[in-house]
């Protein structure tokens, strides 16, 4: 039995907390990850 591999229709009606949409949450995660990496780079090269 093979299906098409396409994403099924969304059937989850729980509200998306704080950010309102999944797209905004994902964007927040990516921005936060980049920010953390930037801070780590700063920490790593700071002239103590």
């Amino acid at each position, binding site marked *: *039995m*093979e*299906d*098409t*591999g*396409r*994403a*099924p229709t*969304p*059937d*989850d009606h*729980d*509200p*998306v*907390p704080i950010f309102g949409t*999944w797209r905004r*949450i*994902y964007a927040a*995660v*990516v921005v*936060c*990850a980049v920010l*953390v*990496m930037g801070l*780590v*780079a700063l*920490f*790593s*090269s*700071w002239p*103590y």
Partner: protein
Amino acid sequence: MDRLDWAVLAAYMVAIVAFGVWAGRGNQRIDEFFLAGRRMRWWAVGLSVMATQISAITFVGTTGQAYTDGMRFLVFYFGLPFAMVVLCVTVVPFFYRARVFTAYEYLEKRFDLKTRTLTSLLFLFGRGLSVGVTLYAPSLVLSVILGWSETTTILLMGGSTIAYVIYGGNRSVIWTDVVQMAIIWFGIFLCFGVAIAQLPAHFGLRDALALAHTTGRLRIMDPSPSLTAPYTLWSGLVGGFFIMLSYFGCDQSQVQRYLAGSSLTQSRLSLLFNAFLKVPMQFLILLTGVLVFVFYHFHTPPLLWNVVEMRKLESAAPPELPGVRARYEAALAARREAAESFAQGGRPAGAAAYLAANQEVDAARRQAIALVEGLNGGKRYNDTNYIFPSYVLANLPAGLAGLVIAVIFAAAMSTLSGEFNSLATATMIDFYKRFVRPAASDADDLLVSRILTALWGGFAVLVALQAGRFGSAIETVNRFGSYVYGPILGIFALAVLAPGASARGAFWGGIAGEAVVCWLVLRSPVHFLWYTLIGAAAVFAIGLVISAALRAEAA
């Protein structure tokens, strides 16, 4: 350890087993036993995902690694937040809506039975072999630190975990993980705070960081494009991204945690919770290791961190030992003096003198290590995992030291519980209920599920009890996950991203991809962080080519 420490450790062990049994009461069906009735909230699942991922060796090993080598290991987690987003968009909705028990069950719906069976077997092979090491490695460290036999620590840690997982299944796993993760977080902040507080009054945090920076221990971002160098920025971002995709997206020990979410939203939020917190948490753990390194500039560190090996060396009393010890003590005194003058405004001129003194300490220690290795017939000696527990026992106040040892137990048990539960689930759902008894009663299914949990737990204990005999093979087995993650990820990528991929393409692509990984392991110097990416890419490409060829032939 002080009596109060023993009391804290004993209280933890008794309380966690009792809580696990209480939290897991009332299972009537296997969906309750394996998926906690799909009723869990995101924060509980998120903490469980985090607890399953952080093993005891991650906790004591990375602090030790930061002490000896620095914080480079942090890059390993850089790909994790991006992997979580990709998983939330792709496989999590598929798994959730397919109402599956195992990730591999979905592959039968998408491809066929043999692809599901192959992938589940790869998981059982990789995870089954490493679960014994997951138990053995912290047991060995704790046995040396606590002065117990290895058998005692293995039976205590393995037996208590098996007890509550057999009884309560995934609900026990998740709720005990929540408690254990709370203890682990508390322990991390405690150790970090104590390490700062124990720096000398005239030597501030900035001085400590400056000292660590001089030795290169704060150098995290290595932009080298090398495929063989360990922990470069790119191996962490790209290689780590694919490892995390495979681990969180295709490894049943993680998938089973978020399948227990009460809705797709809850499952997704549990992963995103980890995306936000994992890198900062690992940063704190590694920085604690670095601060312990600075701490031992002002307190005398042992010549060797493994007390058993040190005693053995002292009993053998090789003629070189007094000289090595004298050299070590003189080097420590010189390093302390250099560190003081470095902090009192001697930068950057004092840096060279300090580095020379630090290298002399390392050289003296290398001599001692050579003596131990000579005594053990050339067997490699590494005491990185003993540094942090030794520091805790020697320098934390009574009660708190016991608590941090309990944290190490908690980290080990939270990983083991998830692994026992997931191994039993894959065996039950992908094999027993698929091939042996598809239509048994709930009571029978529950009984067999508990028996399988006991068997996998017993298997882990047996492997751990024998692991000392395998010697260096253990290291290889410990990396087994990276040998099978690539092909598993490649098969799932074909399932989700390639609508044209066929069942035969996925199956033979998986076999060919595993052959490619075997070749990498046996014949190439490529660092293991890249195995998952290369293995997955091979499966994906070969699977697509085979699928296209079969389509062309049929046309």
